[in-house]
């Protein structure tokens, strides 16, 4: 797992209030189906912004950005540049 994906999962564990474990949920599995609420998604975004010292621009503040771990990873890659391979 890439570092970014691991960080995303840690933040989801802490703020996502998912029904199951954020460590094992499939990268393409719907986080909304797993119990992510719009309120929790705000907290996930705040924690990601703090962790990576970034701001998600408005175009990324959509429901689809938070749909999956993969989408969150792709949004971060978009903002930070591709991650160096680990």
């Amino acid at each position, binding site marked *: 797992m890439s570092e970014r994906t691991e960080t995303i999962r840690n933040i989801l564990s802490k703020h996502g209030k*998912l*029904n199951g474990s954020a460590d094992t949920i499939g990268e393409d599995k719907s986080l*909304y*189906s*797993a*119990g*992510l*609420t*719009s*309120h929790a998604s*705000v907290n996930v*975004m*705040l924690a990601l*912004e703090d962790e990576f010292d970034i*701001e*998600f*621009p*408005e175009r990324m*503040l*959509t*429901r689809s950005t938070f749909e999956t771990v993969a989408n969150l990873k792709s949004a971060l890659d978009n903002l930070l540049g591709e991650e160096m391979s680990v």
Partner: protein
Amino acid sequence: MPLATEISPTGRDLLGAATRIGEEIAAPHADDVDANARFPHESIQAMRDAGLLGAFVPARFGGGGCSITDLSLICTELGKHCGSSAMIFAMHQIQVACIVDTGQGLPYFDDLLAEIARAGRLIASATTEAGIGGNVRSSICAVEYDGEKISLRKQASVISYGAYVDDILVTARRDPDAAASDQVIVHVQRPNLTLDNQIDEWDTLGMRGTCSVGFELYATGTIEQILPRPYAEVSASTMLPVTHITWASLWLGIAEHAVRKARAVVRAAARKQPGTLPPSARHLATVVGQLDRFRALVAACVRDYELARVDPAIGASMAFTIQMNNLKLLASTDVFAIVHASMEICGLSAYRNGTDFSLGRQMRDAKSASLMVHNDRILDHNASLLCILKD
């Protein structure tokens, strides 16, 4: 397609019908509806007969094909005459809009839309549930499956005018294993729908004709009765904007009515002493300005939602959600302030019941605006979105 920012020809006809129904039916019965907290049968039947209940159903299904602009104007018109009738009309249109926007194209929902247009079926909503603490974005109840068949049992704490309808849109978890926030909307209908064990009485200060009591809802059906998109999406793109626009529009109607009374009182006072400005005239000038601002707010939000309906990217943005929430926050406080100011201008004749200037019912109806979906909850939602939304 041109943007629907002006009333359509059908909208104009239906607005005319709303004026007639408002003046001839809703207004004369409004005090009785209010006094007895009873369903406004007369005005709803008249709306059905005039095709108003099918106003938002697209013309190809036999409906009025109205725009949001048209609906807004009709809500304002009805609001002038009977707040409860207008609120029932608005709540019904919210349900129709959800079906039009998300069910259209599927045989089951196409048939339903044609039925709404043909028979004027009135549709209620069951989103609240005992035990969820007022947060309609989470459910305890779930859709249960047996092959293609479904069943659903919900402790619905409020179903406005539920006892008077055959059709209800119900929110529930997608399936018994789904998360509380993973909700769908199901259309259920009699005879495969029962409402038992009414919870509480609807003995309220205002909006007494909406008969918003709770029931234990039980329904059966088939999987085709489930709207295809998640409730969270339907809520953001349709339910929330249409709710806040239709509610704000009918509240505007209540405010228009109150100011009309205040203007009549000031004119009468001015006629008695030409050359002397009645003391109430200055207050009237202020309240007419408030009313103008209220009207402009509603019109601007209607226009922006019409834009969002042709460009879904606008509708999906947080900025748009905040704007629609602000409409509710501002309109709900404006309506009460304007009715209150109008009562101050009219004096005791507005405070007394049964006069030509009575505004008691309007004031009590207007008080519901900040409480139905409490403004604090909406303000907190905006506050939380503003923690992440950029300029």
